[in-house]
């Protein structure tokens, strides 16, 4: 049962991700990305991580994707005749080159897939631990901690240092967005005098 649900949503996630790359209309791309993100949220549910699943839906589907769609629709790409496929730089690769790429991609995919299949019967220690952590602790711990509390506990104790560092990471991302998007006037003239 679990495997069936996993297989369905994993396939959906991968197909939708492929759709993001293949589609030429940016709105289709965005919607395909949304499908992919929602499928991943379903995968989180299969792993008993309901909090992460909800966060995935709220942040990505609710926040990020809505912004994406807003921007795409505000810019009104249709009228400008925008076509993602038309933005190619350089000459079109020859059939031989494309064949070579396809062979390389297929060979690598086959390698990854074969190694994956060989490990299908693996008793996954990670999965066992996740199961005991996510199902067991509520009962075994006696404190009746839910998934959300559990994540909060871990985030603010064991993983506090990387969590704090992540805030520096986000700060840099904000600075980057502002610096790259801002139009400078102040910077146009060179600094007075030289060092």
């Amino acid at each position, binding site marked *: 049962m679990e495997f069936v649900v996993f297989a369905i949503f994993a396939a959906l996630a991968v197909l939708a991700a492929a759709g993001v790359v293949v589609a030429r209309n940016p709105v289709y791309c965005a919607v395909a990305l949304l499908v992919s993100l929602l499928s991943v949220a379903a995968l989180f549910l299969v792993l008993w991580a309901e909090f992460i699943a909800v966060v995935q839906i709220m942040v990505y589907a609710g926040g990020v994707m809505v912004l994406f769609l807003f921007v795409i629709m505000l810019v009104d790409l249709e009228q400008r005749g925008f076509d993602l496929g038309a933005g190619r730089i350089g000459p079109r690769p020859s059939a031989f080159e494309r064949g070579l790429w396809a062979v390389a991609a297929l060979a690598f995919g086959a390698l990854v897939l074969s190694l994956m299949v060989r*490990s299908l019967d*693996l*008793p996954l220690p*990670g999965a*066992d631990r996740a199961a005991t952590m996510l199902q067991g602790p509520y009962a075994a711990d006696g404190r009746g901690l839910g998934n959300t509390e559990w994540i909060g506990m871990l985030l603010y104790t*064991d993983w506090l*240092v990387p969590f704090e560092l992540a805030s*520096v990471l986000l700060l840099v991302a904000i600075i980057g967005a502002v610096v790259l998007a801002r139009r400078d006037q102040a*910077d146009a003239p060179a600094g007075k005098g030289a060092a």
Partner: protein
Amino acid sequence: MTFDTASYVRDLYWLIPELWLTLVGFALLAASPYIRDGAGRRIAAWASAAGQAVALVLLFALYAGVSGVFGPATPEAPGAIYAMQFAHGRPLLLIDGFAIVLKAVVLVAGILATLMGIRLLETERIGRGEFHAVLVFAVVGAMFLISSTDFITIFVGLETMSLSVYLLVGWAKDSRKSNEAALKYFLLGAFAGGLLLYGMSLAYGATGTTNLFGLQQALAAGTPESGRWLLTLAILFMVVGCGFKIAAVPFHVWTPDAYEGAPTLVTSFMATAVKTAAFAMALRIFLLGFDAPAQAAQWTWLFGILAALSMTVGNVIAVLQDNVKRMLAYSSIAHVGYALMGLVAAGAALAGWIPEPQRSLAIELGQSSVVLYMVAYAFTAAGAFAVVILLRREGIEGDRIDDFSGMARRAPGTAAVMLVFLLSLAGIPATAGFIGKWWLFASVLQGGGYRWLAVLAALNTAVSLYYYLRVAVRMYMEIPADELPYAVTPSLTAAVALAAIGTLAIGLWPEPVLRLVSGTAQLLP
């Protein structure tokens, strides 16, 4: 699971250099809106350099205060001065000799880049105040990455560093070259980060832990047959991810464009600090996490191939370059190939291909020779890039090899120093590059079937002499290309002098550095 506040505060004590540096970054960021003129920007740059210098002092004070005082921090990490105990009783961050020396390298690289770039930022009109804050945050990320012994901390540290550097590469918004460099670096860097993360998740699936010490234990306890295939895949992905981050062939295609397009001080930072931190990550992951013989056998030959390809392709293509920054980019790819020899030597020993009398020596030598090479290369490369900055003047890009023409006549001192850097890059005795290469050769010559790498490296060194000396010939045997005075500033002179002193000191009197570096190899069992 109990949270012990006292132990948490005690743990923070060992992160004082990083915490201080984060504060410096915040202060620079807070001050940046009020900085409008050139003088203010110069003050901010000097303050940033001073802040990093203080962090360097703190780092060594911490080290001097504890060496020999603290015993083994945990039974799992015997060589560590201190291991931060968090998740499941296993260290997330390790403060050991390895971390301290490499953090010092990153800080020195950061200081040199900051000092050499003060005038350049004005000439390129990109001296916005936030620049130095972002550079400092990149250093913070690199320092965390170097200490990390858990996939979670590794990834957060790596991304903090990488994101800052993507931004710095594209800082010259009006330059198409800079835009192109940033876009290529960002896309391939994000892709490499994804591959690395995929490898990490597979390793977690096979062993149930994200911790490198946990991984080590799980592998020592033995994995079922099917788990080994998953681990093989994990190793494959992580070798590719690390290969991108250290810019090894065939994962190097972004390097020349990114190095050429980035503002030169950022190029210097990438070639020294970022490369050092990425190497630290690779050493931690493979020498600590995947140290079991079966796994070492897998990644050793992969890195062996990367080493051979990197040094050969890097050197051969560098010969063809007319642009100094591109030439130094290919040369840095070649140096990655040399440095990988140390990792390969240690891996061959871990895989059991070297019999016992030499085995432990090869592991130790392999690891410490990479550290030594990072120290040597940081001073040398930063010095070379600083001299390139000297040639950037109003209206003259100054990054062609022809721009070096006649430098000996116009600035004999600078030309002499540049010659030292070039000789050190080529690995000529009496320079830091020679000492570093000597140890790498020694490590790979311990045996284990990789002696041919030393032969290849020697051949490549001969090739590299050609293009390094080509610059020297321009400097000493040709007439000046232009009459515009070089962009000499006190800060740039200081950076060049520091780099030259480091290069020559390690080359002529290597004992102190060798002692420091040989203390970094206690990490391994």
